[in-house]
């Protein structure tokens, strides 16, 4: 199914995720949400509210136990493991609080990793990865390994990696959680710039003031449900 102009880029309906346990954990409980293309959506909530579960499902890392998720006209909640891998490779980019870079790889190799699995040749991979590093201001650090980079630089490498395949959506899970205030501001500015360029961004953060500064809308989760949906500014 193809997305039409009237449809949101992301359409979440009655999304449920229950983790099996002696007492089953209901991480998401009938969540419904629509995210239009080009939107910067902030997601906040306390620990265990379901923020990361929502992002993992949107990122194709987890599958719901109920409801549906449609991204760019494609119902990802029905995809199999290989199709989900292709979805992760092409449709979404993810940025994590702990950066999740491979320590043994250089910055360039980390950024090029999604292209490796996409079957892109080495020369083309390196060219595009170098370009992505240049876009986040780290071209000079291409041969450095993560341990040789600052936290902010590592997160920018992670952003470059998330963008290397030109995804439709960027998912950021507490991307400033391990960074100082000044660096956090830089990272958020980078995300805002990307959003301004047309990229849809969904970002989780505990710091609501920070979200309000950049997001078009902020939702607050509690016990797997949206308890507050605040529109801050209109999507251009």
């Amino acid at each position: 199914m193809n997305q039409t102009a009237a449809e949101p880029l992301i359409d979440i309906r009655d999304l449920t995720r229950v983790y099996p346990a002696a007492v089953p954990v209901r991480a998401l409980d009938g969540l419904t949400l629509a995210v239009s293309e080009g939107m910067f959506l902030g997601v906040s909530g306390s620990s265990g509210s379901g923020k990361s579960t929502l992002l993992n499902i949107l990122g194709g890392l987890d599958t719901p136990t109920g409801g549906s998720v449609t991204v760019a006209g494609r119902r990802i909640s029905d995809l199999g493991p290989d199709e989900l891998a292709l979805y992760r490779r092409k449709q979404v980019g993810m940025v994590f609080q702990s950066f999740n870079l491979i320590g043994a790889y250089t910055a360039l190799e980390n950024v090029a990793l999604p292209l490796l699995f996409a079957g892109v040749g080495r020369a083309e991979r390196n060219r595009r990865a170098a370009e992505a590093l240049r876009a986040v201001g780290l071209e000079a650090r291409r041969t450095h390994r993560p341990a040789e980079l600052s936290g902010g630089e590592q997160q920018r490498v992670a952003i470059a990696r998330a963008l290397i395949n030109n995804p439709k959506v960027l998912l950021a899970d507490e991307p400033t959680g391990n960074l100082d205030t000044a660096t956090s501001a830089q990272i958020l500015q980078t995300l805002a710039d990307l959003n301004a360029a047309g990229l849809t961004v969904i970002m989780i953060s505990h710091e609501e003031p920070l979200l309000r500064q950049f997001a078009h809308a902020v939702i607050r989760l509690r016990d797997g449900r949206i308890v507050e949906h605040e529109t801050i500014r209109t999507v251009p």
Partner: protein
Amino acid sequence: MRLTDHIHQSLSNLWKKKLRTFLTTAGVVIGIGALFSMLAFGKGMQKNITDRFARFDLFRYVVVFGPSEAPRNPRRHRIDRRSPITAPPLDDARLAEIAQIPGVQTVVPEIRFPALIRRNGNERFTLVQALPPEIVTTGLVVFRAGAPYTHDDPNAVIISESLIDDLDFADPQDALGKPLTVATLTVDAGSLLNPLNITGALAGDTLPFAQKEYVFTIVGVAERMDVGMVGPLRSDVFVTPEASRRMKKIALTNIRDLFKSPAAAQSYPAAGIRLTSADKLESVKAVVESWGYRTFALADEIEEIETAFILMDMFLLAIGMIAIVVACLGIVNTMVMATLERYREIGIMKAVGARDSDVRMIFFFESGAIGFLGGLFGVVLGWLTSLFINEIVNAILVSKGVPPTKYFTFPLWLWLASIAFAILVSLVAGLYPAIRAAKTDPIKALRHD
């Protein structure tokens, strides 16, 4: 992922853990080296024996047995045990008929007689064989020193190198031109004229035998041949038929010969038939056997010989496999460790779009690379070790008079098959770790410290 990326990725990952990779690969190297050496030894033995058969042209020989000389073990010699021994004596007339069969080049009667050979106070009992020069020159007799005799050389004798030590020669060359006394057994007519001796002989207390000595000159020393049953060589001392005829002797090779009828006494116990080509074997055998004779040909034994070689190969393979199994356990251990150490890395790969099959192939390629490197260096190690062992064995055996031999053979297929086998067993060893890695839950892996 592309094939080149898989190869680069696997080698790169292995290089990051050099010591572990080296130790794991060393296990495969030793295992494959041992396997390669053992199979090379098996193939070497096989080649030595079959080359020996081929060199002596033994596939072109059929032995035909006279009525009293049929092999005692019919099953081993593929002879129908139900067929009665109805053959007439194997005499000169019959040999002439055999020589007329299409496909027969030469028929050589087996003429052997007991004798004592003496030199410098050394004495040894043997059966001297009369062997025509035509057979000596076919290549059947391989000379360590000297040359074949001719019909015009009735005092010439050829000895086997197995007698060199017994007769106190320094080496085969040393024996050439030296005299050799051959003492035959004859009837002592003089003693039978003495009535006292006649009484003793009739009572079986004394035997009316005497020795007659002949002095020969050694003209050749032949390579030791341990396949006497197959071809016409069934002794270690050879003289011309002319020399044999002029020697007074009792030509007994078996105590049963004393019980032969006068007609049978003029016959031969066996004869060697040399064929014009090996493909005449069946047709010649069919004719000879239709006359009631039993035959033996090496070609009939090939299947059993091949079975024996296969069993030997299997035995050597089984020993080599012990080392391979140990190496496999090393690979499993290394790869499981790798999946644990790279747990988070696997999660990251999946998060950026790696499929389960991509992850599986990454670990497969790594174990395959260990197998390839182990196989490559393993065959080189096995080859060098085999050459070293060959040199040591030859150094020991040559000092004992045994000619140097290549005990190991390294056919191309053995090199390639050993490397392929190393890769195969490494892939099998990497199966479980690769599947385990592919099943990694990315969410759990990304949370892992």
